[in-house]
């Protein structure tokens, strides 16, 4: 049994380096991974969903998370939502550099759509992680 498993592991083909490149591109620019693979429909549907979700979240007044907003050990609580936000790749980085969506503004937090915006921004990142994994699997030949 053990020999059979080890033989299967030995026979497994290594992941091609292009798959890693596609994965990184898919994370960095939502939809870019599928564009590189010439999966136009998927790129538009999945990448478009992430972009729309992100900009709707910003438009609703949502707030993105980074490590600077907490004090002491409470900054650790910012890590999980920050990981979710970070999933949007360049969108998060550009907003972070420009300071868009990171301000702790009570007026913004009082908006009726504030929590909806937060959720859309988090979900945009998480959906892009799924998109990235899909592009990686296609590039690695594990998926049609």
């Amino acid at each position, binding site marked *: 049994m053990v020999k059979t498993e080890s033989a299967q592991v030995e026979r497994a083909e290594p992941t091609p380096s292009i798959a890693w490149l596609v994965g990184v591109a898919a994370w960095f620019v939502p939809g870019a991974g599928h564009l590189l693979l010439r999966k136009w429909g*998927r790129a538009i*549907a*999945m990448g*478009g*969903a*992430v972009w*729309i*979700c992100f900009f*709707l979240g910003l438009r609703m007044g949502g707030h993105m998370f980074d490590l600077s907003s907490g004090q002491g050990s409470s900054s650790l609580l910012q890590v999980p939502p920050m990981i979710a936000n970070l999933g949007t790749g360049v969108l998060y980085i550009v907003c972070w550099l420009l300071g868009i969506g990171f301000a702790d503004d009570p007026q913004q937090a009082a908006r009726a759509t504030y929590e909806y915006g937060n*959720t*859309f921004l988090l*979900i945009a990142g998480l*959906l892009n992680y*799924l*998109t990235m*994994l*899909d592009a990686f699997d296609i590039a690695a030949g594990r*998926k*049609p």
Partner: protein
Amino acid sequence: MTLFAVLASVVFGAVAKDTTRDRWLYGLKVFAEFMAIGLVLGWILYFIP
């Protein structure tokens, strides 16, 4: 909620299955589930002060 359900079900549908027909069916199923669960939870929370 509807927008959220549409966007999430598009990605879920595209990721999950192998054939186009299965993707559409799964996406529609996920969309319907998001909507139904959202409405049920909304009504439950409505009655909780």
